[in-house]
């Protein structure tokens, strides 16, 4: 398998972008909650990204990416329409168990809205009453509102500054939903670890089953290295093959957050190194341009 072409790209903000990649087999195989591992070029790192949508007819999968470090920023620059990715493998992980819950709350925080979408849609298709709760820092960062809303029976949008929907975190949205519906069977939450931790705490007292999707650092994604290990209750699990979905009430989020900081120093170095070479490249281009003009 090679030649993974980018057939569509959309920029939601200056840090969030969408890539639609042609991969007919994957589009057929993908299920909600699964992810891929991408290498943008031969020297690149293998980074895990959730499959935010898949279209069997077009034979494509969709990734929504936040530019946070070297690889995701570089991809933001180079992954243009018509370019190809060096490698993409998946769909990885155990598909989300779309339970027979009658009433579910689907929570997406920030970028987590994208990976949450296929699950919300699957719950809707299986006949559940779906309450969507999405959270963003402010109105400008909102994306996929219509798409998400379309598969929800109720939809609550939260922003930190109140510039859209209710002012507050997604946990506020969950609180409102629980208050209004005493019969919620399940809450599913995807977002930054702190947010998922907050969601699990918000539902614990109500004893509502809460599933979260964990995002530890990964290498192979096939269960071979143990880099993605997470603590679930008393057990150690490998998120890439045993997850990525786990019972939020059992997850040790502090452990997850500590482990995410493993390579902070090296990540900084990689970013600096890359920015340095980008600057150099710019100077070279400028000098070449100047030389051309001088002639």
């Amino acid at each position, binding site marked *: 398998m*090679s030649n993974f072409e980018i057939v569509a790209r959309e920029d939601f903000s200056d840090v969030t972008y969408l890539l639609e990649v042609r991969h007919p087999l994957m589009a057929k195989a993908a299920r909600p909650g699964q992810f891929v591992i991408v290498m943008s070029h031969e*020297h690149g790192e293998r980074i895990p990204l959730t499959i935010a949508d898949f279209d069997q007819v077009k034979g494509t999968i969709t990734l929504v990416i936040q530019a946070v470090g070297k690889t995701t920023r570089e991809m933001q620059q180079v992954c243009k329409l018509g370019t190809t990715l060096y490698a993409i493998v998946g769909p990885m992980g155990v598909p989300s168990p779309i339970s027979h819950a009658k009433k579910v709350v689907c929570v997406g925080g920030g970028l987590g809205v994208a990976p949450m979408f296929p699950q919300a849609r699957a719950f809707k298709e299986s006949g559940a009453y779906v309450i969507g709760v999405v959270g963003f820092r402010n109105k400008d960062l909102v994306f996929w509102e219509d798409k998400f809303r379309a598969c929800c029976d109720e939809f609550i949008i939260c922003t930190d500054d109140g510039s859209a929907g209710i002012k507050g975190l997604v946990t506020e949205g969950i609180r409102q939903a629980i208050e209004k519906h005493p019969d919620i069977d399940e809450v599913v939450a995807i977002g930054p670890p702190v947010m998922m931790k907050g969601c699990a705490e918000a539902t614990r007292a109500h004893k509502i089953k809460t599933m979260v999707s964990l995002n530890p650092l990964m290498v192979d994604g096939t269960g071979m290295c143990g880099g993605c290990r997470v603590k679930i209750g008393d057990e150690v699990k490998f998120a890439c093959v045993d997850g990525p979905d786990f019972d939020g009430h059992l997850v040790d989020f502090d452990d997850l957050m500590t482990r995410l900081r493993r390579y902070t120093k090296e990540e900084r170095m990689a970013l600096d190194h890359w920015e340095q070479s980008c600057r150099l490249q710019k100077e070279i281009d400028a000098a070449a341009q100047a030389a051309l003009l001088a002639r």
Partner: protein
Amino acid sequence: MAKKKTIRTIPQERTPMLEQDPRARAKNFEEVSYGYRLQDAMREAERCLLCPDQPCIAGCPVGIDIPSFIEKIGKKDLRGAYDVITATSLLPAICGRVCPQENQCEGVCTVGESLEAVAIGRLERFVGDAAIAEGWANIPYIEPNGFKVGIVGSGPAGIACAADMAKAGCDVTVFEAFHQPGGVLRYGIPDFRLPNEVIDAEIGKLVGLGVRFECNTLVGRLFTIEQMIGEMGFSAVFVGTGAGYPTMLGIPGDSLNGVLSANELLTRCNLMRAKEFPNYDTPLPIGKRVAVIGSGNTAMDAMRVSLRLGSEKVYCIYRRSKAEAPARAEEVHHAEEEGVEFHWLTNPVAVLDDGKGGVRGMTCIKMELGEPDDSGRRRPVPVEGSEFDFECDVIVYAIGTNANPIMGQTSKLKLNKWGYIATDEHLATSVAGVFAGGDIVTGAATVIEAMGAGRRAAASMKAYLGIRDSNLPYVVPDESGILFGIPLRERNFARVRVA
């Protein structure tokens, strides 16, 4: 006719192999051993008595006709030696480097009863390297038989099975989850033991046989084994997905940053080239003081990689004694030479937290050997009150692996009680047309055993499909360039393709 050799007439000492100086090589990723030169190989070949018992052949998991290839080396007929080896083994340049010869062919060598055994592994490597340098490949005429065969995993088991099925005339595709083929050969065993060029060359030969490699393909998830023999139209499938799933110790502090499996360290370093960070994007934790737990090949590789990455101190912590260390003898010896500090009869009890999520050190306990256990090895038991702490900032676990769960999660293949794929004596699984072999059946073993399993599975597959090998001889171009009386350059053999 030459006089019959006896133990007293042969060179008494094993011919040494040129190696990089230990202190220099502990700082680079160049290959440690340079291999024999022709004169070295011929001298070593002299040491083989060509004894009638030939215990070495029985000692080889794939039964290479060792005395005959050595005899050919003695006659400077390297091409002939290569043909003898490749009649049974596929990857001499690899196996000569990584087989645990001391437990196999060399362990039973007749010369070894009174002197040092004949260096069979070094001779095999010599022939394998000569073949790569000369571009030899034994490509038989292949008549397509219309069968499509799928291989899952491109480690030694998958490669060996693929080669045999391709030679039998099947249309073979190998599916690999990683972006490069080779399995442990690629991601596990470091460059200084097995250079990438050697793997590329050996895989190149398979491509020459018409085998297709599809990387970036996670079988089970992208499509299932059942789909392969169903709608995808494969007549038979071989599963060689390797062991994977590293074991953690389960002691306090296991999840601290700075504790990682040898597989993670080695994959980052070898496959992802983290040693060239930041020119390659993947980072790697480089400890000042690294403790590696375990004493197998994987542990030795982790230690020697750490030294090369610039760690000041590298310790080996093993609960049994040196005699029980499962690594190849040569690797332990090399690690010692390069400056690894060995702590035998020592077992970790807890990893110590530095208060910031990282590792400050480790508490260990001294062990002593007690009664023999089921494996016949004396069981290590802790010495009460002998706990002690020492400083380190990276801890690498190399204490074995469990079965990878993906095949079990995604297919109806029956597993055994440890989670490995269950097979009968012909390596057939519970699903008709699906065979399995290598580490995913036996648990972590060796390259040559995995290759042997791949070949045995291929034999069963051929029986299952009702095909026989076209028993045509390999093409052996002689020096004159004339074969069967026809000049090779002008020949137009209907049924023979020359590599």
